[in-house]
């Protein structure tokens, strides 16, 4: 199917999410839509899928103008969409989910048997291994995504929109998805692939269209370098790698031993975790979302009951209240800033002192010192380049990147003995990412031990001096920053470091080969991390594949 968008404009009130966007997707082409978060990619796809009506412009399918008043119109035209957040009913079976909306009937009753055989057919064709009678909520995320693809294929989709499909996948699942995309393409299905991850985009796309602030910046071939692509996305030259000197690891500051967290329902969420972080080094915690990283951060902060021990400069933190932990010098950037990091309806100035209201600088007796708070706000806004109309604006009105800067500014505005940031750049524009990464490295260089929890491998590679890999609440190993992607990927999928090293990964799919030296500093996990030598790091793994 050939799809053409002509001069699509979509306005919400006076704000134009898309302005005069034109693009053509040829039959059997993988067309990538590249852009930062908030650039208008998803809006455009929702227009294409009939969820939004464009303010102006037209959509042509096989050179005929069409008008979509709802998803069913788009489906009828052969357009299917796999949403970033899956549109699956968790308590339904695969067959029920696939049947929904286009059910076959036998008299008055549902005929799920027809659906089941269609699912088996597609599943066999693409090697999906999906059981039509499995309940969706019991399936792993990667399989749920395949159910979404099946949903589109059952409806004879000739064009498939994949909205940030790799955000929730492990590196291995991502590779499998890319293979499926190539297979779909061979069978003549056109694919619109939305992403902001340069590595995948360059690997699989035929054409890349870059979108910035709702407008098409240009179309390029996948041969473009990551630097060129990033510059197009952001609108200026950005350095994809973080310039950082060798870590000057000092004495061991944080020692976590035998940390175990058991959930309210008796589930073990973290099991006998042992690790330590030295002053002046960054330990990155890598892992697919939901493998105990959140629990680790919460246990450290005192939000969760834990057993074992967490010692910060010799002081025990387990069993302390959150207030006591903060006073011990822990700075914390939570994973989800909008719910845990900020109070949206509070002003920027108030958010900047959320955990400092007891500080004598900002209060006298029972009342707050408004003037000091305002002065503090001006200072931080300038220092951290927070783009806001005024210090009195509601925090919720700021962009994601600027909200994140508020949280980081607040946490770094008191003397720290440990800085812990979860997903510090999730949903943050590339320009701000650069800034935030620089601040984190600066904190390290001032001698503070830093822990970064991230599900983005690129970020892990950019910042880490050492990498701790979590899987199912257990530590799979602590490895050096030059450990190849495939090895990290396998560890994130549950292999211990020794197992991975024992069975060399199959060739292919790019990624730097393990430098011989990496064997050395990737000793038994957590053995004696202090002696990690902190050599210079290849910061941007994608550069090597160019």
């Amino acid at each position, binding site marked *: 199917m050939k799809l053409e968008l002509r001069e699509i404009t979509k306005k919400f009130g006076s704000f134009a999410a898309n302005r005069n966007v034109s693009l053509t997707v040829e039959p059997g082409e993988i067309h990538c839509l590249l852009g930062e978060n908030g650039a208008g990619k998803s809006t455009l796809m929702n227009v294409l899928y009939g969820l939004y009506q464009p303010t102006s412009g037209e959509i042509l399918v096989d050179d005929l103008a069409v008008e979509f008043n709802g998803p069913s119109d788009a489906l009828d035209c052969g357009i299917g969409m796999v949403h970033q957040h899956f549109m699956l009913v968790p308590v339904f079976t695969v067959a029920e989910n696939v049947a929904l909306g286009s059910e076959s*009937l036998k008299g008055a009753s*549902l005929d799920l048997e027809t659906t089941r055989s269609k699912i088996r057919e597609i599943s066999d064709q693409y090697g999906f291994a999906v059981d039509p009678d499995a*309940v969706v909520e019991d399936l792993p995320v990667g399989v749920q995504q395949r159910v979404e693809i099946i949903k589109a294929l059952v409806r004879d989709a000739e064009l498939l929109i994949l909205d940030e499909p790799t955000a929730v996948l492990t590196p291995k699942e991502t590779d499998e998805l890319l293979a499926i995309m190539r297979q779909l393409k061979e069978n003549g299905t056109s694919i619109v692939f939305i992403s902001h991850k340069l590595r995948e985009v360059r690997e699989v796309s035929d054409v890349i269209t870059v979108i910035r602030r709702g407008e098409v910046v240009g179309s390029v071939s996948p041969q473009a370098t990551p630097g060129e692509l990033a510059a197009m996305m952001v609108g200026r030259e950005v350095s994809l790698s973080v310039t950082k000197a060798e870590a000057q690891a000092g004495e061991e500051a944080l020692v976590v031993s035998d940390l175990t967290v058991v959930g309210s329902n008796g589930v073990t969420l973290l099991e006998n975790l042992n690790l330590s972080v030295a002053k002046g080094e960054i330990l990155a915690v890598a892992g697919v979302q939901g493998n105990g990283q959140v629990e680790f951060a919460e246990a450290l902060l005192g939000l969760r009951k834990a057993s074992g021990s967490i010692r910060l400069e010799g002081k025990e933190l387990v069993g302390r209240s959150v207030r006591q932990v903060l006073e011990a010098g822990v700075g914390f950037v939570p994973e989800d800033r909008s719910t845990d990091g900020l109070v949206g309806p509070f002003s920027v100035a108030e958010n900047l002192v959320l955990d400092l209201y007891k500080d004598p600088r900002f209060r006298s007796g029972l009342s707050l010192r408004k003037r000091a708070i305002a002065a503090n706000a001006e200072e931080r806004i300038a220092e951290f380049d927070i783009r806001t109309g005024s210090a009195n604006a509601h925090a919720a009105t700021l962009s994601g990147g600027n909200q994140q800067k508020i949280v980081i500014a607040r946490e770094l505005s008191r003397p720290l003995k440990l800085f812990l940031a979860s997903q510090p750049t999730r949903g943050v524009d590339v320009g701000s990412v650069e800034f935030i990464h620089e601040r984190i490295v600066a904190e390290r260089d001032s001698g503070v031990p830093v822990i970064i929890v991230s599900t983005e491998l690129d970020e892990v590679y950019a910042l880490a001096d050492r990498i701790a890999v979590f899987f199912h609440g257990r530590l799979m190993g602590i490895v050096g920053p030059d450990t190849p992607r495939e090895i990290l990927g396998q560890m994130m999928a549950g292999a211990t470091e020794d197992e991975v090293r024992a069975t060399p990964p199959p060739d292919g799919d790019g990624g730097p080969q393990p430098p011989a030296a990496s064997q050395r500093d990737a000793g038994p996990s957590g053995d004696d991390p202090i002696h990690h030598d902190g050599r210079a790091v290849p910061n941007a793994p994608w550069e090597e594949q160019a």
Partner: protein
Amino acid sequence: MSTATQTPAPGHGTQGEAHEGAEHVDPAALPASARRAPLGFGVLALVSLIVFAFNGPDQSVTFRISGDGDLFQVPNVVVPGLVTGWVITIALAALTVFAFLRVRSGRLTPTWSVVLYGALFVAGFLVWVVGSANNPSVSLTGLLAGGVALAVPLVFGSLSGLMCERSGVVNIAIEGQLLFGAFSAAIAGSVSGSAWVGLLAAMIGAALVSLVLAVFSITYRVNQMIVGVVLNVLVSGLTGFLFATLLESDAGRFNSPPRLPSFAIPVLSELPLVGRILFDQSIVGYFMWLAIPIVWFAVYRTRWGLRTRAIGEHPKAADTLGINVNRMRFVNVLLGGLIAGIGGSFYTLVSVTSFTRDMTSGAGYIALAALIFGRWNPIGAFLAALLFGVASNLQSVLSFLGTSMPSQFLAMLPYVITILAVAGLVGASRGPASAGQPYVKE
């Protein structure tokens, strides 16, 4: 994570059994509510030990099964009170241990054990309560038949709630629907002189309550709980006012509706035990026997049902497949009103033939509890409503037998059961995920 315990999940069709195999979840997946089952079991077993065993009646208890007019006679069941109390207590304790071991090994308490436990406890209670009466003999048929009659409006109320909640609208207004249905039936039946017109008016009246609920909660996205509660108060006030000004002043014209027909099906109704329950009913009672399987089939086996369940669980998913979520919710809430109206007519066209102020007296809330206790399943809701009905009926039956137990205590019984049920002490209960949340298309 199979949170919905072991309900044979009719929604999942034929793989229900296949899914049963998946009960062997790793303890990780056990929801906190599932772990409460052994606790609930334990508490009730203790009650059984103290009440049924230690304070068991010394006399034998007779349950009569056949009536005089039956086709053939089934002998009465006579059990020794004290021994039965002990036997049942031991059985309950065994089930408690079983449930505890299951949960400890990370598995769910199976549904059959919950049902068995409930049945044993009810049996123990019956033996104890009848045994402590002066005349320890009770007609099981009469008890059940009376319970069914009391359950009729509850069942219709529950089905109305089911239609709404399965599609994602919480219906607190069942009470208002029943009451307005009863009122409309009385006034329309009296004026027209036809009970059938009364029935139709009841359905329309209750659907009007639904209409207000739908407009405010779906179109204007007002909090559904608040709209529901306000509607109940509104209907109570409105019918109370009209009762005082209109119905009471000219009862002959406005408040003396004819009765809907009741009839026994020959032969079948003479079967012992089930005959009177199933085949000697008012027309509304027969409607109930029809409505339960019809709604069950519609919810679990039709396209409408699949879509209804989908918009109650994940409306956005349904929307992306071209299903008009809010229109479907609107229609379902109206359908729910029509169903509740049939239940409302029971009050003024079947059980008595006049309307009185607030005559539903909280039945709508009990119906809501039955819906939750019955896990949003029509059959489950019916069984729960039946339990409440029998509990209410027991109160009047026992006052005939002359029991030393205060009648207030027995009157409390349905509500105590409701609290235990809704608190999830007998297994986890998971409702439609999106019930109560208005669907907003961006």
